[in-house]
Every structure is written in C-alpha cells, then in structure tokens.
C-alpha cells in the first residue's frame, strides 16, 4: 500500500486532510459565535426565576460567562483541543465529551444498522430493476422507491411500532429494555427506508448506464453468465456515483437518527442535543454540533479516498 503512494498521491492526501481540518475549525468558530447570540440567559434557564442576583453572579462566574467573548473563545478552543469540550452547565461534574461518549455508541450503532438496511435493500433492488428495465420488476422497484421516499420517518416510526410492536407483538416497544439487538430493528428501518429509496434509484440509474456500455456487450458475447456479469463487471463500476450520493446523504442519515431517537425514546446524540437545546446547556449544544461536523468531515474524507480504491482512474484528480 505504502509503495503505491507516489509523491503526488501523498500531497493530495495531505491537502485533503488539511482542508478537512480547516473545515472543522471554521464550523466550530461559527457554532461558537451562533451560540453566544442566543438571547435566552442560560443562567436563568438553569437556576429558574427564583434565584437571587448573587447566586446568578456566582454561577455566571463559574461558567466563565462574565468574561469577554474573546477570552471565552480562547478557553473554548483550549477545551476543544484537550478533548474535554468543556463542562456541562447542567452537570458541572461532567465534561461534555464524557456525556457524549456515553451516548455516541447508541447513535453510531443505529446509523450503521440503518446503512446496512439501506444498502442491503437498495443494491439488489436497484440491480434487478436495471437488469429488467421497463418490465415488471423495475416497476415494483420504482414504486417501492417512491413510497419509501414519501413516507416521512416521523410517521414511519409510529406505524412500525403499531404494526410490529402492538399488533403482531414481534418486536419490543419504545422504552422497553434496550439490551437486545431486536430493539434496534425498527429504529434502523425507520432511518434506513428513505436512504434505501434514494440509493435504489441511484443504483438503478448507474447500472442502466453501465449495462449499455460496450465492454458489457463484449463480456456477454464472450459468454459470461448473467449473474457474474451483473455483479463483477457492471455493479463495481456502477458503485462510484452511488457512493457519491451515499456520502451526500450522510446529513439526512444523521437528521434521521435525531428524529428516530425521539420516536423510540432511545438514548443518543440526538436526544442529548435536543435536551441540551431546550435547557440552553450551551457547552453540550456546541459539543454536539462539533462532533456532528467532525463525523461529516471525516466520512467525506474517507469516501473521497475510497474512490481511489474502487476506481483507480480518479486517484489523483
């Protein structure tokens, strides 16, 4: 692997990583400024209306809110750099990072499960639809994709709970013990459905384009059976545009997990973010936006680099 890296590739890699870092710093600064502009007074939100002025002043000092914005920014950057991300307003004994570390695995597991649902539906369905373009299977796949896009996850979640939790009783209801993996199925389907619909459409379009190319006709003429033809010759080349769309949908995936965590009463980044927002727990709000920004930047970086693996031609562009 290392031997394959030419100086050009290395420079490209470093450039991409540097740009990713700059993006994160930029986003963090924007978030810092945005959050300082919240008109609601966090001190009042924490202590309530009854608190006396001395009590408020003391908390303000403890939270560093009495210092100039410039100094706040420097100490904020320091908190970000040392990894603690500051201290929660509501829980002064906890660092923001420790609170996020607690819930982050739930969100990551949910997002990965949703991706698995989406890809395992979209690739077979999109491939079959492309192979049988214009015929029965294609129409079924297209209808499924349109329906999947149209059902909002805020409605799909409750519907799934009613069908599989209440009527059939197969899967646990929200708020039940979260220990079992079966509690993950409905949330994953809720997040993954819209994603599956988008990817099915993309896979179908990309496969149709690839299947029309001459090397496919040539392979068919050589007598390559249709299943290896589809999977080995066509699908691999069709995956590049699908991956781009998949990465662009990351935002939708994270939005979906926020909504789904609320529906299924699951702990996670979304729940933490919303709770912190309503309580005006500024450090936690900042931390959540930062971690989401980092996830987004890192995933995009990885996808960019993964292009090179899937298609060697784009390695240096």
């Amino acid at each position, binding site marked *: 692997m290392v031997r394959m890296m030419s100086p050009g590739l290395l420079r490209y890699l470093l450039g991409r990583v540097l740009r990713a870092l700059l993006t994160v710093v930029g986003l963090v600064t924007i978030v810092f400024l945005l959050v300082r502009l919240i008109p609601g007074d966090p001190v009042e939100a924490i202590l309530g209306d009854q608190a006396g002025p001395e009590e408020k002043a003391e908390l303000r000092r403890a939270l560093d809110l009495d210092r100039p914005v410039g100094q706040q920014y420097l100490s904020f950057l320091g908190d970000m750099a040392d990894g603690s991300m500051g201290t929660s307003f509501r829980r002064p004994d906890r660092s923001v990072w420790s609170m996020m570390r607690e819930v982050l695995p739930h969100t990551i597991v949910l997002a990965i499960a949703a991706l698995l649902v989406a890809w395992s539906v979209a690739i077979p369905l999109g491939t079959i639809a492309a192979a049988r373009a214009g015929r029965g299977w294609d129409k079924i796949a297209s209808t499924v994709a349109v329906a999947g896009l149209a059902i909002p996850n*805020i*409605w799909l979640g409750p519907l799934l709970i009613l069908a599989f939790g209440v009527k059939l009783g197969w899967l646990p209801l929200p708020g039940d013990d979260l220990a079992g993996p079966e509690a993950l199925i409905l949330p994953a389907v809720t997040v993954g459905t819209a994603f599956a619909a988008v990817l099915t459409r993309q896979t179908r379009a990309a496969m149709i384009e690839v299947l029309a190319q001459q090397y496919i006709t040539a392979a068919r003429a050589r007598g390559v059976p249709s299943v290896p033809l589809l999977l080995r010759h066509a699908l691999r080349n069709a995956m590049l545009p699908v991956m781009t769309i998949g990465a662009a949908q990351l*935002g939708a995936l994270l939005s979906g997990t926020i909504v789904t965590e609320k529906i299924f009463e699951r702990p996670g980044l979304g729940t933490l973010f919303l709770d912190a927002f309503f309580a005006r727990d500024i450090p936690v709000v900042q931390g959540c936006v930062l971690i989401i920004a980092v996830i987004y930047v890192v995933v995009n970086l990885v996808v960019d680099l993964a292009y090179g693996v899937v298609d060697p031609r784009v390695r240096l562009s």
Partner: protein
Amino acid sequence: MKRVRARLRRTPIGLGIVICFFVLALVGPWIAPYDPLMIDLLHEYEPPSWTHLLGTGDNGIDILSALLHGARLAAIVSVVVVGVSVVFGTLLGTWAGYVGRLTDHVITGIADLVQAFPAIVLNIAILALVARPGLMHLIVALAVNGWVLYARLARAEALTLREREFVEAARALGVPTHQILSRHVVPNLLGPLVIQATTGLGVVILAESTLSFLGLGPGKAVSWGALLDQGTSVLLRFPHVALFSGGAIAVTVLGFNLTGDWLRDRLDPRLR
C-alpha cells in the same frame, strides 16, 4: 365522456393531491367544524365518530379541525420558504455561474457546506438564536437550507448558457451583464426551477412537520408535526391521533413528489 375519462387517466394523482391541499389550506379554517384550540377534557382521545369525524386528541381538540388549520400553516410556510429560496438561490446561482472565479468558489463552497451538513442540526442551531421561535424564525431557518438547491440548478444552467451563441452575441453587442442575466439566462431557467420548486414544496412541508414534531415549531400555531408528536406520545393507547396527522403529512409530501416527477416528464422532453 370517453375523452374525459382518458384525460383523467393521464392527469396524475399527484396533481390532484396538490390541488386538494391548496384548496383545503385556503378554505380549511372556514369549513373546520370546531376551533382547533378548543379544550374539551371530557372527550379527550376519542376514536372517530359522527361528532368528531377523525376523533379527538390532546385536551379533546377535534383532529379534523386541527388538520385543516395545520394545512394552512404548512401551505404558508412552504410557499414562503420556497419563494424566498428560489429568489435568493437563482440570484446567487446565476451570478456564481455566469461571473465564475472567486464569486463562484465562495458561493459554491457555502452551498456545499450547507447542503452536506445535517439540515435539522442547522435548523436547530438557527432556531436556538431566539428565545421563543415563531413563524418568521421558522421560515428563515428553513430558507437557509432551501436556497442551495436552486442555486446549484441556476449555476449549472448559467455555466452552459454562458457559452451559447445567443448569449455570446448579446455580449458582443455590448449588452450589460445584468441585462444578459435577466433577459437571456434567467428565462431559460424557468422550466427546471418550476420542477425543482414543486418537489421543494413537499420537502419544506416535511421539514416544518419534523421541526414541529421535535418541539421546535412556531409556538401557538396548529401544526401537523406537533399533532403527530402528541399522537406518538399516546401511540400505544390512542393510535388514531398519530395515524391521521402522519397520514396527512405523508400524502401531501407524496403528492408534491409525484407532481414534480410528472412535470419533469412533461417539461423536459429529453427525459422521456
């Protein structure tokens, strides 16, 4: 008669849904049988009946009336947000695409950032700027995400139009840039913009519902998303609240999506 039926078959179901939605949003609050905020604690969470066609919800409010009022909110928010987004997006996009260079880099860069970042997180961050988010704030928050799609579209079209002969001819004749843009570039954008805006209305309705569902909607107004939120919290005992409110959102969004696809097929013969 036969011809009417044939035409009906070709008229898409999506357009029917969209027209129904706008008519109900317009007249809904007048034909609603009850005040959607009327509290009737004796009849809380009743299933559908002749007195309450879709049943009652939290505090005994009539769900049909709440949905009709919610339709107006959804229509106002979506039309205003899409309108603002189209205007800003088209201006910025054509400018970026036609002028190019640094302008293009800056506008495209911001658009990339906004588009890829989770929309809800961005919306929440903007709504967090105000103590009590109202209708205006919601509209601003949604428009901050909204303009990107139209800007991309306008930029792509402006880039190709810039090289076309009739634009080059206008430039050679010394027509000022703003006139080239307004007379030659923007009119050519109308078709794609209409298609995008139709789908965009559905996207905004869904976004408004989602934010209301998360408790970030405009305070007092009756919203489908807020109703669905109430319905979800009593889902196991009174499923009808969530079923009807969520159904309204889903059918409306589907209608706009189908209409967008139908328009694309009709207005863009290349895709036939």
